[in-house]
């Protein structure tokens, strides 16, 4: 006789809402063929429900933590948790999805009858990544990763009419599958070395036993970090990023990049800082090395790009390096704060790209931004603030985020890493300034103001968040500090 499993609806409520929402979008589209506007409201409602349920989870999790009852935070026989870390990351994911869909909505509408499938794929990708950030089990984490990634591969190829989009999808798919295989092999080796798939089980094993010859575990950690490093486009696993960012439909790139980074880094932080915290001496140098390589390579290569999307891709590589310094610093709140800030800025920056190069355009040459300051002053102003925020100018949120991860790494004894990171930030500033100079100092070839659709709300929110949390960061910092993994 099989005893039925215990179902914890609370633990999966937001994911369930998103998954059911995706099915609903598909079915409503088949049955009633609604206008894009109706579809938009439906998706908005689904995301609002998901976000609301996430906030409810937060309350529940805070109660459980206050009463010291961490057991109740683990659900489904240890497959997933609802600790603060998971809920915070999940909220960031849902917020990025809402903003990203708004930024890409003109593209979704331009797909016509295929728009519903595209929307459903976005919702499913978020569901997958949301399960991934909550996973307390490496198998569950892998499944979430695959659900999210495979949906993203399809999204990259949505503008298949253009060769670039097809190329982006194929490249992303082939390299991504390879990275997933590397990741799962690492998981297998970790299982062989510790006898457990569970994050907490692995930590327990490493606590209880002295590992006399840990080669298997070391290789396992290395492969897992390599696999996830691909997803967050950390060097040397970043080569796909510029081509995919350039080829994928402009409206959706911000969403794709943001959720992959958030989920990937949440998984890296959870695995390294929770499961393998006892082996920190072995993985710290490796992660610090990846961090340095990403920062240096990303910043230097971004300097020479003539295309804004490729520039943002390489700056994303540099940002992956900055976030890695937070992982080296060993504090999850710095990483989470950075992720939240960066995800919003990234979606905002790509909303500008979507306006300038058209919702499904290929590439976004720097030439197109010439004289944007005169052509569309508000758009150029928003882009300027977002770029300065990414660069980490004081009184923007980017500065607070960088300051946080750098101080963590400094306290951990990685002063040299922080020094490299600060130099890389200065170099990174140069290419952000370069875009700004092009926008304001040059004459426009075309004086016609650009048409801004729903992107304006995304930009307003992103700019607002960048300035607000740059001046009053404590509201978000406190939340991130409460968002601890179990």
């Amino acid at each position, binding site marked *: 006789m*099989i*005893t*039925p*499993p215990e*179902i914890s609806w609370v633990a*999966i409520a937001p994911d369930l809402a998103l*998954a059911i929402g*995706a*099915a609903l979008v*598909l079915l409503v589209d088949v049955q009633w063929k609604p206008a894009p506007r109706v579809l938009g409201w439906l998706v908005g409602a689904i995301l609002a429900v998901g976000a609301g349920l996430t906030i409810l989870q937060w309350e529940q999790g805070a109660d459980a933590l206050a009463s010291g009852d961490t057991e109740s935070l683990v659900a*489904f*026989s240890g*497959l*997933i948790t609802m600790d603060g870390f998971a809920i915070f990351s999940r909220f960031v994911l849902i917020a990025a999805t809402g903003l990203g869909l708004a930024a890409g909505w003109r593209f979704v509408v331009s*797909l016509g*009858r*295929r728009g519903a*499938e*595209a929307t*459903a*794929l976005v919702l*499913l*990708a978020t*569901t*997958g990544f949301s*399960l991934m950030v909550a996973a307390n*089990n490496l*198998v*569950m984490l892998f*499944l*979430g990763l*695959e*659900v999210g990634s*495979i*949906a993203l*591969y*399809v999204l990259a*190829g*949505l503008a*298949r*009419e*253009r*060769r670039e989009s097809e190329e982006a999808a194929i490249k992303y798919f082939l390299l991504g599958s390879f990275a997933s295989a590397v990741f799962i092999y690492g998981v297998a080796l970790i*299982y*062989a*070395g*510790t*006898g*457990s798939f569970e994050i907490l089980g692995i930590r327990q*094993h490493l606590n209880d036993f002295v*590992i*006399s*010859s*840990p*080669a*298997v575990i070391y*290789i396992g950690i290395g492969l897992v970090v390599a696999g996830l490093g691909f997803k967050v486009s950390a060097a040397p696993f970043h080569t796909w990023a510029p081509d995919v960012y350039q080829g994928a439909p402009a409206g959706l790139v911000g969403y794709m990049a943001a959720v992959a980074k958030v989920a990937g880094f949440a998984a890296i932080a959870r695995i390294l800082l929770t499961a393998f915290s006892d082996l920190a001496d072995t993985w710290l140098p490796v992660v610090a090395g990846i961090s340095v390589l990403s920062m240096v390579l990303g910043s230097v290569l971004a300097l020479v790009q003539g295309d804004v999307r490729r520039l943002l891709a390489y700056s994303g590589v540099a940002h992956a390096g900055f976030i890695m310094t937070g992982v080296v610093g060993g504090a999850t709140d710095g990483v989470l704060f950075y992720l939240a800030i960066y995800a919003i800025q990234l979606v905002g920056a790509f909303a500008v790209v979507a306006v300038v190069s058209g919702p499904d355009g290929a590439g976004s040459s720097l030439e197109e931004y010439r004289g944007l300051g005169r052509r569309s002053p508000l758009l150029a102003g928003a882009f300027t603030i977002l770029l300065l925020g990414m660069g980490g100018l004081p009184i923007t949120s980017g500065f607070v985020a960088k300051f946080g991860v750098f101080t963590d790494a400094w306290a951990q004894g990685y002063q040299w890493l922080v020094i490299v990171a600060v130099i890389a930030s200065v170099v990174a500033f140069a290419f952000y300034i370069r875009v700004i100079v092009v926008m304001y100092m040059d004459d426009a070839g075309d004086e016609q103001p650009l048409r801004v659709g729903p992107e304006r709300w995304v930009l307003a929110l992103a700019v607002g968040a960048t300035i607000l949390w740059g001046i009053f960061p404590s509201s978000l910092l406190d939340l991130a500090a409460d968002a601890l993994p179990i």
Partner: protein
Amino acid sequence: MGKRMVETVIFVIAALAALAGAVTVVLARNPIYSAVGLLGTLFSVAILYVVQLAHLVAAVQVIVYAGAVMTLFLFVIMLIGVDKEEKRVEPLPRQRLWVGILAGAVILFAAGVALFGEFVWVPAAATAIDQEATNGTIQAVAEPLFTDWVLAFEATALLLTIGAAGAVVLAQFKRKRA
């Protein structure tokens, strides 16, 4: 000759067959040969599963991979045309050499680690599995699948949905004239 010896011999034969199949997949000029090579690899791996007493996995491997997936592969190859041999023009002359050297170095490193590194596998993982599971019965697989792992099982349903929706959305498109 002990049980261990028999296992080792079977392992070596099946592993060599699997490798030979994999090499055929990469080197064969005719795609049909590649497909048949893959079939050989899949069957050899199924034998390895049987040696590990995972009879159900072995059966699934044969039915799903060697049966269904291979049929699909052959179907696609037949649709595209068997007689088209690959053109032997080298588009990436230098990269291929570097990749070869790199792959060789990695393989040597892995072999070195396997030979000289002291690997310790955790026996706890093996003892945790009960006797029924080691007999490879369907029940022993099904019960954890629908109890402890039910959420992971359901998450794979999302994958199928993505597959269906993704295929629909990618298949319907009109190529703009370049």
